[in-house]
């Protein structure tokens, strides 16, 4: 471990943990004072941010000289009397107004990426990736970064409920314990995948006290089939650990591994590590994606083949057959007639590529179908990929759900054989395929306890509701992969009257230990002994808390030899001949399976491919839209015969003509509060007149055969005649202008093929144009000259940077109606362009933020000097000087300036606690834009000066750069010849947008190279 490096990093301070300080009376005092009064509960559905802060709380913040979110910009007529009430005794070692970093583990999904939480004056305000973490390696996705906002969600469950009424923990505990005592057995615990080993231990102890008890884990969007398939072919029910960095050929059937599949940050890091043309030696993998809808992963593929679910199954079968034939393996179960309905050369090509790179290839399938997954296992096995590009002997524990167990539990419930059901971290009433049956069965269970963060559908049907801590308030741990444990530490005292699952169960067992002690004890007993080091347990623990993870000796799991007999042909279901359209359910990158539906940052995050915010919708191919006479926004009814929803249509180039796609995770209870979100004015349009939740629930379209849940279904579409315009952030989809207006392609995005690139590194980037200069001498930047380069070859479009920037720079959420009016505020956007015909399209993702032109057109037009250049080449925007002519935005060729059309900020919202106090919140009527995180530059310079050292390349990481899982963004001083940025500027792939115009942007791009 590089602890020294970490400690020495100038602008980050890692805390060993809160405990030392927590134990001091001063800190206890401070902690109590932090929230001296309970925040009022939220009950007004029309308002979304509402927890009003009491006066005493504000005074408290002022007390330590805290600037409360810098929210008030103007309108101080007479300077008000500012009072300061210092603490009676201040916490030691805490410098007000400076940031402290705590390492922890992300709980945005089960992938367990390492994070650093930046706490300022006692409250976490930013989450970043932990660069030391072996899996995520400093990357972090949009969801992970948005977790900090959900901490301050005013609608988060705060108090235990009984029958819908607030109760106390004592009463709830008493009642639950006595009821459990009466019921005796048939106690079940239903959870999502539990990655925390200490929690699992407590669960085991808890359930061990009852006969006929079981812990059922399921994931709403399930990976059960992969686990089941490995159980059958390798004798071990686990997820293999995929190593995309080692794969030279990647063949993915519907697996959106760069977007939402299993562990997208880890996979993006590894995937882009395998596609590095700047590194030495340069390398690039070959990636084929076969899919029906256009996924983020498909949009990055070197070759993308549009297939229906049935076709993809058929192709997979043919690939398996061919490889079996080449390898001389007899696969009787998959012999027989080919169901292939597309050009067989596809199969030959895939097979050929795979066989060329035996042991360095990777075949994936995103379908939750055991038979398909067994075929995948077979192919990977036959190619010798196990142990190389994927590993089942040292598996991953990120997802553990079992659909079979879930349906078993449902059967027991229906049969009345469940007396007590505890539901934690799951919302089955919302996300089960047969949720209605589950809800019905729930009624007959004598004791239902839900442990939840929000008053969701399931909680509404439970007698007891236990509010759960936010991960940033909790101690926790996670077993992410074999030998790798993540550590979660609290970064703020509890905001509500909440407990972790572990704590609840422990109390109900009457173990009476604080949560941290439970975790610590578990680590002492179970993990510390596996660690081959010389530290004492306390030192080991301290180091784990400090690092946020610990790697111990991995234990090789017993894996059986490959069970060829288990490999069978896929279900008939997938084979051609289905009627209607194939519906593919998928997760959007923001709200995932609905668990983040309460997070407005993620709701407003444009989908990386469709660029739609605040909605789910029916994606159809352009040909299908034409055939049905549909235009974008037209509402269609989608029905599978049992369940139907009405949703607007989104026309998706590159989608298969027989496939429609709907995202799950929408229509959740609680999201009604967003329907009127945004400035209220005369033409404001609510997302739904009846103030219904955002989007529609698509989980009921999932089907189950009792063993696994399938997220593919057959549906019919009917036009309704209604229309509901989508909130899009990009409406022109191509880099070419319309055919009747010239049809030429513009050169803002540049790409080339690998072959051309090898012949000429400047290929695709040869645009030359004489640049004319009106005046002789340019401004000379003597000190630093900040610049940025974005490698389009690495950028996958995952949008982590968008949220990173939003969190860092207090970017306002504007709501669906404002986005629909094209007024989103994101300082960084990711432009997505299609090229090719509408059917088979290739996709480019291009992050665009302020380009910080040295000849900035915006600057010369501002009448009041509200935007001028700094001595270090930054295009500064001075909010308090801006009068709001919007001339700069008009004159910006990149359209990166964002205007505050309304007052988007409201004082007194609990959510405002997430604001970065270093940055002002902009009032209405002023322009804003990317500042190159100038606060970070200033802070780094001050920090260097405080230590009397020179600023080094890499000391300053901008919010977008830091979060990028693909490491596509590089920032630095281009006056420093040894810096990475100076090197990249010299790279033959480097170009600048519109360079012929002589704007001299300091933000540049590197040509994308496709391996075709």
């Amino acid at each position, binding site marked *: 471990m590089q602890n020294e490096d970490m400690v020495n990093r100038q602008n980050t301070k890692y805390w060993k943990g809160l405990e030392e300080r927590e134990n001091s009376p001063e800190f206890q005092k401070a902690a109590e004072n932090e929230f001296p009064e309970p925040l009022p509960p939220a009950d007004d559905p029309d308002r979304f941010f509402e927890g009003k802060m009491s006066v005493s709380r504000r005074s408290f913040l002022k007390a330590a000289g805290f600037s409360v979110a810098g929210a008030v910009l103007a309108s101080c007529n007479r300077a008000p009397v500012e009072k300061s009430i210092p603490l009676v005794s201040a916490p030691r070692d805490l410098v007000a107004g400076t940031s402290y970093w705590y390492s922890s583990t992300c709980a945005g999904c089960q992938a367990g990426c390492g994070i650093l939480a930046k706490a300022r004056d006692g409250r976490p305000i930013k989450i970043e990736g932990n660069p030391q973490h072996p899996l995520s390696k400093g990357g972090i996705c949009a969801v992970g970064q948005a977790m900090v906002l959900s901490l301050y969600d005013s609608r988060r469950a705060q108090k235990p409920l009984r029958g819908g009424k607030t109760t106390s923990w004592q009463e709830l505990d008493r009642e639950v314990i006595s009821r459990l005592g009466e019921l005796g057995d048939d106690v079940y615990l239903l959870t999502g995948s539990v990655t925390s080993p200490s929690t699992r231990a407590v669960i085991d102890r808890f359930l061990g006290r009852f006969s006929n008890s079981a812990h059922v884990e399921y994931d709403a969007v399930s990976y059960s089939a992969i686990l089941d398939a490995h159980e059958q072919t390798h004798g071990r029910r686990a997820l293999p650990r995929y190593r995309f960095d080692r794969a030279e050929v990647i063949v993915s059937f519907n697996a959106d591994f760069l977007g939402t599949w299993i562990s997208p940050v880890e996979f993006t890091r590894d995937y882009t590590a395998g596609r590095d043309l700047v590194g030495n030696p340069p390398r690039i993998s070959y990636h084929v994606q076969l899919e029906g809808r256009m996924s983020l992963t498909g949009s990055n593929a070197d070759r993308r083949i549009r297939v229906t679910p049935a076709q993809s199954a058929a192709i997979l079968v043919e690939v398996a057959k061919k490889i079996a034939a080449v390898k001389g393996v007899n696969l009787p179960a998959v012999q027989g007639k080919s169901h292939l309905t597309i050009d067989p050369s596809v199969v030959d090509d895939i097979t050929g590529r795979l066989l060329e790179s035996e042991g360095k290839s990777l075949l994936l399938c995103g379908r939750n179908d055991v038979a398909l997954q067994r075929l995948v296992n077979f192919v990977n096995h036959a190619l010798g990929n196990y142990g190389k590009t994927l590993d089942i002997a040292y598996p991953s524990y990120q997802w553990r759900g079992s659909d079979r167990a879930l349906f078993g539990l449902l059967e027991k419930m229906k049969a009345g054989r469940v007396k007590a059901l505890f539901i934690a971290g799951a919302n089955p009433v919302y996300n089960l395929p047969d949720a209605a049956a589950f809800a019905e069965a729930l009624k007959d269970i004598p004791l239902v306890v839900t442990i939840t963060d929000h008053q969701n559908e399931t909680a509404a049907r439970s007698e007891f509701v236990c509010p759960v801590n936010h991960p940033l308030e909790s101690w926790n741990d996670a077993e992410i992969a074999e030998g790798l444990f993540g550590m979660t530490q609290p970064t703020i005292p509890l905001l509500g009257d909440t407990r972790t699952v572990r704590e609840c169960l422990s109390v109900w067992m009457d173990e009476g230990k604080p949560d941290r002690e439970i975790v610590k004890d578990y680590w002492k007993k179970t993990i510390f002994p596996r660690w081959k080091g010389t530290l004492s347990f306390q030192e080991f623990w301290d180091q784990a808390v400090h690092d946020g993870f610990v790697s111990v000796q991995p234990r090789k799991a017993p894996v059986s030899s490959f069970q060829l007999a288990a490999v069978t042909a896929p279900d008939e279901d997938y084979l051609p001949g289905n009627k209607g359209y194939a519906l593919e359910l998928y997760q959007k990158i923001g709200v995932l399976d609905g668990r983040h539906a309460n997070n407005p940052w993620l709701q407003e995050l444009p989908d990386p491919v469709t660029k739609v915010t605040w909605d789910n919708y029916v994606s159809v191919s352009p040909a299908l839209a034409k055939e049905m006479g549909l235009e974008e926004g037209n509402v269609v009814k989608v029905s599978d015969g049992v369940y139907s929803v009405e949703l607007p249509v989104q026309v998706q180039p590159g989608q298969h003509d027989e496939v429609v796609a709907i995202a799950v995770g929408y229509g959740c209870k609680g999201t009604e509060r967003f329907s009127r979100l945004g*400035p209220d004015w005369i033409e404001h349009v609510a997302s739904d007149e009846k103030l219904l939740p955002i989007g529609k629930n698509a989980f009921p379209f999932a089907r189950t055969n009792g063993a696994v849940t399938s997220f593919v279904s057959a549906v019919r579409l009917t036009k309704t005649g209604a229309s509901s315009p989508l909130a899009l952030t990009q409406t022109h989809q191509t880099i070419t202008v319309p055919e009747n207006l010239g049809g030429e392609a513009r050169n803002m995005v540049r790409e080339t093929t690998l072959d051309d690139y090898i012949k000429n590194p400047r290929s695709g980037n040869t645009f030359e144009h004489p640049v004319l200069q009106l005046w002789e001498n340019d401004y000379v930047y003597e000190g630093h000259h900040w610049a940025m380069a974005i490698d389009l070859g690495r950028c996958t479009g995952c949008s982590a940077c968008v949220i990173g920037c939003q969190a860092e720079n207090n970017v306002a959420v504007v709501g669906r109606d404002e986005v629909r009016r*094209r007024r989103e505020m994101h300082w960084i956007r990711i432009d997505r362009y299609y090229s090719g015909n509408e059917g088979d399209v290739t996709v480019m993702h291009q992050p665009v933020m302020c380009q910080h032109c040295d000849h900035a057109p915006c600057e010369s037009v*501002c*009448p009041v000097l509200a935007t001028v250049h700094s001595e270090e080449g930054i295009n500064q925007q001075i909010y308090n000087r801006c009068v*709001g*002519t919007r001339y700069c935005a008009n004159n910006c060729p990149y359209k990166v300036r964002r205007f505050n*059309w309304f007052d988007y900020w409201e004082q007194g919202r609990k959510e405002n606690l997430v604001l970065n106090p270093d940055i002002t919140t902009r009032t209405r009527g002023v322009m804003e834009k990317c500042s190159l995180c100038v606060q970070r530059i200033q802070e780094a310079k001050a920090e260097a000066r405080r230590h009397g050292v020179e600023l080094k390349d890499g000391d300053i990481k901008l919010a977008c750069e830091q979060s990028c899982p693909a490491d596509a963004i590089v920032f630095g001083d281009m006056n420093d010849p040894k810096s990475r940025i100076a090197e990249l500027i010299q790279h033959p792939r480097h170009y600048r947008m519109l360079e012929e115009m002589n704007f001299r942007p300091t933000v540049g791009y590197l040509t994308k190279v496709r391996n075709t």
Partner: protein
Amino acid sequence: MSLRFSVLRKPLIHGDKSLAQVTDDVARPLETGPTTLWWSAFIISVAVLILGVVAVTYEIMTGIGTWGLNKTVGWAFDITNFVFWVGIGHAGTLISAILFLFRQRWRTSINRSAEAMTIFAVMCAGIFPLIHLGRPWLFFWIAPYPNLRGSLWVNFRSPLLWDFFAISTYFTISLVFWYIGLIPDMATLRDRATTKIKKVVYRLMSFGWTGSMRTWHRYEVVYLLLAALATPLVLSVHSIVSMDFATSVIPGWHSTIFPPYFVAGAVFSGFAMVLTLMIIARKVLRYEEYITIDHIEKMCKIVLVTGGIVALSYGIEMFMAWYSVNEYERFVFLNRALGPYAWAFWIMVACNVAIPQLLWIKKLRRSLVTVFIISIFINIGMWFERFVIIVTSLHRDFLPSSWVMYKPTIIEIATLAGSFGLFFTLFLLFARFIPFIAIGEVKGVLNYGRNAGKSVSLSTKTD
């Protein structure tokens, strides 16, 4: 002044007016009570003005978001209206200054009202840059004044700052020019005043004018100087307004042809508005003998000439876009003609290029109804010209990812309507309280083209 050739010329003022008649005729509307027609027009105008005031108040209270603008189209109705009104405001000063320098004596019948129109139009125009600010209460930051910010000045490179100077100078000089012309007439009214209040007010406004020739002598020099100053000024104002666009980098805006193109357009639209107003006013105020059909025809000719320049500019813009081989420039013009806002472009072409060609026909030029209709079309067309330039250039610029559509909100439409309400309210008040025709100047040209046999006869003197 060569009156002896005047037999070859037609009189400028019909009806063989005597000096006193002129005074009576012009003063009549001010001295009689307002007519029902005036009242109804006034009430409608004020109602529309109030609508506009409500809209603007709402906008300032709530935010610019109440307009249909977005991240790509940062200006639309606001600056369209601004340029439109500034354009309208060009005819008055042109008539009073340039035609004065060119010794076009027929200008005397219309210069007062045209100048008033200019001032009101510039007032309407000036409101838009003010209310289009995100923080209009800080508008004074655009003025360079010493301050406590280390003296943070303003950006003298910004065309908006030039605008600030140009518009305020233009307004000031126009107002002064107009008022200087008004002083003798105010004295006339003062001397005719029958009520005490009128007497007080007109005395206040007439600056103690006595008609002394010594004053007239200086007055004439100042008038000439102001005309000489206002002539380049009037050309500079719209040139500078055009630089808001021309100095930018946006294709469709960034064009060196803009200054003359805008000035011609401004004169074109200004005269159209003058025609619209005069055709009504001469009828309602019974000034047919002062604002004669010859006046109308002459103005039509100016409209024809400036319209021709405008049409030529459209053509040259298109040609240069093609000739430049600049893909962005070409695209913008194709997009104007064939893109989603093609309807606006074709309205513009129809109204500004096609319809005014009818004025080649003398019969139509001298037909009040046709001229009135054509002038309305030109007004509409010139509004759309600015809309086309602003919105179609912005809505699809360099990066296709940022392309958007713009749609006005009711607040914007109400604001536009309100500006017309303000304009007509002011104009109606002007027609009620201030001599519509420059009495002193008309008297000076009364003899022009008169028959030598008349009593107010020719002098044998030549000068």
